């Protein structure tokens, strides 16, 4: 645990990954298998969404990556070093928000950050006040910095937890459900903060159970369910896995459905003035022309992109908010 931060040269990271686990497994003492043979690869510079229902093993994985929990078997490398053995070399480069913020209620927001910064051996005490002020500024908490943390709202606590993760320049940010307890305005602010950090080159590992949140900010994603990794990859690839649907809006729905079938579209569904179908393998302009030629009055014609939610349902065959 106390491996020195000696200048052992950086090992070549396979594929330049910031997090790489191999067959990572955690079985708790009760026999419960929380994480089962996880092979996770987080590319450097990505905003990586870590998805899964509550109880799917996300938090246990994050705790193993942060050296808080010893894996039962398998390996985890963070920033190219094995965890938890290299905690002392790796963790100063990592900012983390794990399972919500935890604060000293009797200390002010500012003093909480000073306390956490004092626990970091690489943090320079001479720049501590300035860095704390900058972190408070960044999460918009400057006005409440002197208030006791006990009096903070959930959203303010969440912001303070984020500020603690931003006390130093980081190479990796691990944010476990960062928008929990925030109002829509706060959520938007956090998302833009995440994008800003990512554009500075920080890799962001973001766990969430909110699909649209992942879809809005992440470049890559992995999906877990019941301790196993279901899929991982670029968000665009994941969504492409579930194909988009052709949507035709028309008052002549019955006729439109007939023409679409004729044109080779499968799984045609009619709902009032909306006809949807799997797009056929031909130029959609021709499909539209065929509709018009058949006298179908077309109000709208287009392909709805598949959402990550569609992809998730396609992968698991179940709704998303099912607790493992």
């Amino acid at each position: 645990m106390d491996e020195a931060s000696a200048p052992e040269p950086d090992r070549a990271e396979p594929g330049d990954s910031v997090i790489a686990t191999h067959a990572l497994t955690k079985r708790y003492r009760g026999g419960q298998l929380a994480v089962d043979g996880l092979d996770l690869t987080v590319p450097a510079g990505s905003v990586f969404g870590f998805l899964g229902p509550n109880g799917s093993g996300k938090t246990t994985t994050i705790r193993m990556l942060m050296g808080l929990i010893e894996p039962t078997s398998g390996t985890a490398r963070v920033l190219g070093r094995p965890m938890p053995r290299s905690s002392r070399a790796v963790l100063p480069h990592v900012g983390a928000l794990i399972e919500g913020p935890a604060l000293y209620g009797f200390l002010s927001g500012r003093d909480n950050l000073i306390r956490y910064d004092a626990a970091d051996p690489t943090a320079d005490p001479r720049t501590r006040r300035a860095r704390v002020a900058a972190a408070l500024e960044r999460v918009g908490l400057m006005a409440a910095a002197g208030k006791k943390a006990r009096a903070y709202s959930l959203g303010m606590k969440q912001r303070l937890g984020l500020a603690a993760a931003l006390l130093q320049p980081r190479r990796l940010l691990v944010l476990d459900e960062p928008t929990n307890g925030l109002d829509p305005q706060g959520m938007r602010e956090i998302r833009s903060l995440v994008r800003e950090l990512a554009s500075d080159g920080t890799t962001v590992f973001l766990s969430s159970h909110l699909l649209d949140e992942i879809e809005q900010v992440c470049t890559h994603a992995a999906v877990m369910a019941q301790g196993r990794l279901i899929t991982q990859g670029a968000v665009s690839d994941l969504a492409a896995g579930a194909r988009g649907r052709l949507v035709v809006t028309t008052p002549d729905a019955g006729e439109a459905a007939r023409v679409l079938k004729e044109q080779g579209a499968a799984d045609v569904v009619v709902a009032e003035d909306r006809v949807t179908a799997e797009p056929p393998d031909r130029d959609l302009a021709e499909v539209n022309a065929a509709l018009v030629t058949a006298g179908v009055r077309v109000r709208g014609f287009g392909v709805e992109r598949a959402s990550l939610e569609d992809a998730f349902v396609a992968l698991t065959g179940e709704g998303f908010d099912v607790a493992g």
Partner: protein
Amino acid sequence: MSRAETAVPRELGEVRTPSPLWTFGLLRSELVTTFRRWRTLALLAVLAAVPVLVGIAVKIETSDGSSAGPGRGGGGGGPAFIAQITNNGLFLVFTALAATLPFFLPMAIGVVAGDAIAGEANAGTLRYLLVAPAGRTRLLLTKYATVLAFCLVATLVVAASALAVGAVLFPLGDLTTISGTRISFADGLGRALLIALVVAASLIGIAALGLFISTLTNSGIAAMATTVGLLISVQILDQIPQLHALQPYFFSHYWLSFADLMRDPVYWDDLTKNLGLQALYAAVFGSAAWARFTARDITA
């Protein structure tokens, strides 16, 4: 403190080398955090109040000119030295320490030590200290050092409060030792300080025990209650004559040996046994706490 560099670390291995003094920075943070806790201050306030109560009680009881202590009203005799307080306020220091050592002082230590790790786990702050990364061994050492500092502060608070109350309510001057010899007031003050230090050192054992219990659970309250419960149990068992073979190994067995510092010459036998026993407890339970804390899954 010299710094290797303050540049933004981008590559691993290029981290600013922590100054060896960093551990003291963590210790300072720990001390500040502990002593700013309302609970810590309340414990110290209770400890400071004990000498005031004893002083006032003795003053009222002896206002008719009679002497306090044994022989009056068939009472049990009260804590050591209580009979001499009316002659010399300095004896209130010894009395107050003798009155607080069996229970009030170790209870306060039990609360602070029991809360040390378990309280942080309970609040969730432990995981953030560890990913900072404070380092488990260093954090544990820092916690133990802070509990020991609290032992010293708590004892000195009792002694200082007793000295102040004694000076206000009773005369001060040369004093008579248990052996019957006379020593000067300055010499007496020196011995009072020495006694306070020995009393503080007597608490090392329960501090280590409390810290070990604190690593076993995620509930600060449970750790405090267990530590204080053990303290009471041991105090009771120490009174049962059938257990005399075991009693020399109870952390509280030689606690009141500090009175031997008031003999002339000082009788060191039990004093050294006490300090040796405290060191043994610190070694055994300190190692146990370390073994447990460095291997434990932090799930809170």
